[in-house]
C-alpha cells in the first residue's frame, strides 16, 4: 500500500525547497541591468563602506530581491489558499480568484489606502489587515448565500462567487478611476496584479502574515482530508467540523488578504498549482498543502521574472503571464487526465 510516509514528505519538501532557492538565485540575476554572480562576490568581498552601495548592489538587493521575495510569498499564499478553499468547498473549481475572495481582499486594501491608513500601528499594519477582513467577509457572504437547507449547492456557490467577484471588481475600477492621478496604473495594479514597488518593511509584514497563516493551515492539513469526505463523514470520523472549517476559512482569508493587498488580483495560481501538484504527488493535504505553497512560490517568481524581462523596459502585468502560461497548460492537463476531474 503506497501512502504518505514521513520519508516521502521530507524528500518532497526538501527537493521543492532547493528548487525554490535555486529559482530565487537564478531570477535575481535576470533583468535589464547586467549583473553576474561574480559581481555579487565582489560586492561581498570588498569592505562594505566603500563599494556596498554601488548601482549593481542597489538593483540586486533593493529592487530585485524584495520583489522576488514578495512573489515568493504571494505565489505560496495563493496556491495554499486554493488548496484549502477547494477542500473546504469540496470543489475542484474553487480558488480565491474565482470565489471573489481576492476581489474582496483588494477592495479591503483599497479602502484602507483611501482612508489614509497607509501606516503601521504598533505591529499591526492596517492594509493587509483590511485585505484579510475584506476577503473573509466575501467568502462568508458567498458561503451563506449558497447555503440552502443546510446544504451548500456547489453550482450556486460558483455562480455567487463569480458574480460577487465581478461586482467587487467593478467597485474597485470605480474607486481607482475616481481617485489619484495615476488612474490607469492603479486599475492595472489592482485588476491585473503587480509585484513591483514594494519595499522591505511591507515584504516582511506580508511574509509574517503568510507564513503564520500557512503554518496554522498546515496543522489542520489532515483535517482537510476528512472534510473532503463531506461534513457528515468527517464528523463521524471524529472531526470537530465547525471549528475546523472556521479556522480554515480564516486562515485562507488571512493569507489571501495579505497577498492581494500588496499584489492586486493575480489569477490562475490558486487553481492551477493545486491541481498540478495533486497530479504529481497525490491528494493527501499534509503533503499537498506545503508542496503547493512551495511550487506556487516558484511559479510566481518565474512568471514575474518573465513579466519584467520579456519586453523590458516595458513591464507586462504579471497576471497576464500567469494566465497565458498557466491557462493552456491547465487545459492540456484537463484533456489528458479527464477522468480525474469529470467522473
Amino acid at each position, binding site marked *: *500500500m503506497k501512502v504518505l510516509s514521513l520519508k516521502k514528505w521530507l524528500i518532497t519538501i526538501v527537493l521543492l525547497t532547493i528548487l525554490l532557492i535555486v529559482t530565487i538565485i537564478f531570477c535575481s540575476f535576470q533583468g535589464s541591468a547586467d549583473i553576474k554572480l561574480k559581481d555579487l562576490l565582489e560586492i561581498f568581498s570588498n569592505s562594505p563602506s566603500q563599494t556596498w552601495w554601488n548601482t549593481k548592489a542597489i538593483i540586486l538587493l533593493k529592487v530585485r530581491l524584495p520583489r522576488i521575495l514578495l512573489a515568493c510569498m504571494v505565489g505560496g499564499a495563493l496556491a495554499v489558499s486554493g488548496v484549502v478553499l477547494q477542500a473546504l468547498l469540496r470543489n475542484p473549481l474553487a480558488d480565491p480568484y474565482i470565489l471573489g475572495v481576492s476581489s474582496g481582499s483588494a477592495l479591503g486594501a483599497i479602502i484602507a489606502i483611501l482612508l489614509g491608513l497607509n501606516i503601521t500601528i504598533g505591529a499591526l499594519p492596517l492594509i493587509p489587515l483590511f485585505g484579510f477582513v475584506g476577503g473573509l467577509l466575501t467568502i462568508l457572504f458567498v458561503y451563506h448565500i449558497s447555503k440552502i437547507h443546510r446544504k451548500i449547492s456547489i453550482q450556486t456557490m460558483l455562480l455567487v462567487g463569480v458574480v460577487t467577484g465581478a461586482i467587487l471588481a467593478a467597485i474597485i475600477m470605480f474607486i481607482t478611476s475616481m481617485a489619484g492621478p495615476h488612474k490607469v496604473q492603479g486599475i492595472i495594479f489592482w485588476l491585473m496584479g503587480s509585484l513591483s514597488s514594494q519595499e522591505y518593511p511591507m515584504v516582511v509584514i506580508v511574509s509574517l502574515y503568510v507564513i503564520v497563516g500557512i503554518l496554522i493551515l498546515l496543522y489542520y492539513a489532515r483535517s482537510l*482530508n476528512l472534510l*473532503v469526505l463531506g461534513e457528515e463523514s468527517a*464528523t463521524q470520523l471524529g*472531526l470537530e467540523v465547525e471549528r475546523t472549517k472556521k479556522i480554515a476559512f480564516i486562515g485562507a482569508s488571512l493569507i489571501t488578504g495579505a497577498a492581494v493587498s500588496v499584489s492586486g488580483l493575480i489569477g490562475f495560481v490558486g487553481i492551477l498549482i493545486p491541481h498540478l501538484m495533486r497530479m504529481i504527488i497525490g*491528494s*493527501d493535504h499534509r503533503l499537498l498543502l506545503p508542496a503547493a505553497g512551495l511550487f506556487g512560490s516558484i511559479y510566481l517568481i518565474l512568471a514575474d521574472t518573465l513579466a519584467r524581462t520579456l519586453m523590458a523596459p516595458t513591464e507586462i502585468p504579471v497576471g497576464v503571464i500567469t494566465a497565458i502560461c498557466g491557462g493552456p497548460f491547465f487545459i492540456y492537463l484537463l484533456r489528458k487526465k479527464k*477522468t*480525474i476531474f469529470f467522473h
Partner: protein
Amino acid sequence: MTLTPFFRVKDLRFRYDQSWVLDGLSFEVREGEILGIIGPNGSGKTTILRILSRVLMPQEGEVHLHGKNLLALSQKEIAQIIGVVPQDTYFPFPFTVGEVVLMGRSPWLSGFGFESERDLQIASQAMTLTNTLSFSNRLIFELSGGERQRAIIARALAQRSQVMLLDEPTAHLDIGYQIEIYDLIKKLNVEKRLTLIIVAHDLNLASEYCDRLILLDAGRIYKMGSPKEVITEENLSRVYQSKVLVEENPVTGAPRVTLLSKLMSKKYREKRLTARSNRIS
C-alpha cells in the same frame, strides 16, 4: 450472545424544522446483534443513524452508549466506538483507496500526525478482510460501486470501532454486490463480534441477515422484534400502504416478501375483464 445494551435510546424526539421527524422512540441495541431499521421513505431511518453518531442532536430524549450519555463524549471518543458507512460518498479529488481506508485511523490520531506502522497494519487488515487490499493503490473513483462500498466498510473497520452503522449500504448496487456486502456484514458480525445497525431498504435482505428489526412509521416504532414478528403481511401493508405477499423462504425459513402491483391484483383484473365483456356485448 450477551444481552447487555450497547445503545439505550429513550423517548427520542427530533425535528429539522417544524414537524417531528422522530416522535418518541425508545429502543435498545444489544451487543453483538445485527439490528435492521426498516420503514418507508421519510420515516426517519437515516435520521436515527445521524443521532446515534451525533451528527445531529435530538431536541428531546436521551441516547446512552455503554451507560454514558452520548452528549458527554467528544466527537473523537464517539468515533473510536462507532464507525459509520454512508450510502454513497462523493470524492471530488483523486484519493487512493489506501488513503481513504487510512482515514479510518483519524479518531486515534491528533494534529498533523502521520500514521504509525501499527495504523498501517490495522488498515491493511481491514482491507484484507474486505478483499480490497489488491487495489489499494487505485483511485477511489475508478472503482465499481461494490468495490467502493467495500473500501468504505474497510475504512469503518480501520476505526476499530465496536459498532458499525450502515445507511442503506447496498442502495446503488446490483444483486451480486448486494449479497457480497451483506455476507461481509454477517462475517464481521460473527468473526469480529461487531455490533451492526443497518438501515435497509431491501426487506428481503433485512429479513435474511438481521437478528432483530425495527419497523418505523412516520417517526415512531410501529413494530420491533425478530424478522418473523415484524415482516408480516399485516404490518407491511399497513406501513407501506401497499399490498405484499409474505411467505417462508424455502431455503432459510426467513420471511420472504413479494411485492404485489395494484394493477395485478385479482380483483382489479376481474373488474377489467367484466368491463371489457360489457363493452363487447
